[in-house]
């Protein structure tokens, strides 16, 4: 199959070819998802070099594992980002004794995406992401904080409760309220 033909395939149809170790299919997969993977890794680990390492390890693990993607576990993008997140959180835990990078500092180190021609799917993804970013921003600080500590920091709710010196029930309730708002935003976006 040519590159142009591969580029026309939906993610779900591309992954079986990656699983059959077709390097050209992996290139297309890389070009579609490496930006999101790298951005998430950078958000979690907070350094360009570590983000590169996490992205490389996560994407190569997909290549080497025969791309065991299962449609039941959501979209290819969500599955890929789940792998990236786990690698990044592992790195944080290994390296630090835990220091989540929750501030979006240091961005000047990285060039922003140049304007590019986006596929419809990618444009929709970015628009949804923009809306969710807005929704997270609009969340009350205490809700946004617990969600970010859990998702980007890899902390458990009891660790978060201890860190914020709040009762566990309060932390759990804030997580639920925040996630409900994000779900509502998503429902509107779709």
């Amino acid at each position, binding site marked *: 199959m040519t590159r142009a033909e591969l580029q026309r395939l939906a993610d779900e149809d591309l992954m079986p070819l990656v699983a059959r170790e077709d390097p050209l299919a992996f290139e297309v997969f890389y070009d579609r998802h490496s930006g999101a993977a790298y951005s998430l890794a950078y958000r979690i680990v907070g350094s360009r070099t570590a983000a590169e390492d996490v992205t490389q390890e996560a994407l190569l693990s997909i290549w080497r594992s025969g791309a065991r993607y299962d449609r039941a576990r959501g979209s290819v993008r969500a599955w890929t980002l789940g792998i990236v997140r786990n690698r990044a959180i592992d790195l944080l835990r290994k390296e630090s004794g835990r220091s989540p990078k929750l501030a979006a500092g240091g961005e000047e180190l990285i060039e922003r995406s140049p304007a590019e021609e986006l596929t419809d799917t990618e444009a929709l993804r970015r628009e949804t992401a923009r809306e969710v970013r807005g929704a997270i921003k609009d969340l009350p600080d205490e809700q946004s904080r617990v969600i970010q500590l859990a998702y980007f920091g890899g902390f458990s709710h009891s660790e978060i409760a201890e860190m914020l010196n709040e009762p566990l029930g309060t932390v759990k309730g804030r*997580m639920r309220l925040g996630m409900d708002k994000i779900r509502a935003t998503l429902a509107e976006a779709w």
Partner: protein
Amino acid sequence: MIGDHPDRDDLVAYSLEALDPREVAAVEAHAPGCARCTRELEALVPAVAVLGESVEQFEPPPELRERVLAIVHEEAEAKQAELSGARSREEATTRRERRGLRGLLMRPAVGLAGLAIVGAGVGGYMVAEDTGNGGGGGGAETVPVVAQQGIGGTLAVADTSSMLDLHGLKQLTGREVYQVWVAHGTSVRPSSNFIPDSSGRAMTAVDGKLTPGTKVMVTREPHPGQTAPTSPVLLSAAVQ
């Protein structure tokens, strides 16, 4: 028995992987058998997934693409070489068997001897894989590697490219790679580089014809692209 429904707060925390291990076990013991909780967890999946996409988007550096795709292509080629090596060995065996049979039919007196040689040749290759003594099969020769730090493996030498099959390799960090070097006389050239899998195994192709006296070595390098070894040799295999 699936127990009581977990608190909805716990389902949300579970979906964010924020529960403590005991609570995770409780949710996982209950939810698969409970339609209501399964529905709730499924409904949370897109909201959690989109968190990962909600971060500011940056362009990954082009060197990352080059590095990852170089490894992917190299591994795909190694696999291909491995497959075609196995095919050539199979074909060579078939050819020898056919020759042996034809010889047997045409020249009964020497046919039996020919067949015995074929058997010895194939057997020799197989024994070489086990013992590392080198093979007499003609298609490929397997050379044992001399290694340290618990590393082991073999080098299968074929006509146009060879294959290192290693185990016991330590995991790498950062941009580190294992680099293969080919030494002959006083000259040393870099060949492939590779990253082992999580169990410490790796197969990598060594390009070019390896003539007798050539030594294949592996070092651990801080990043790909070195033109000469910068760290001690971890293993070597000498082609006889």
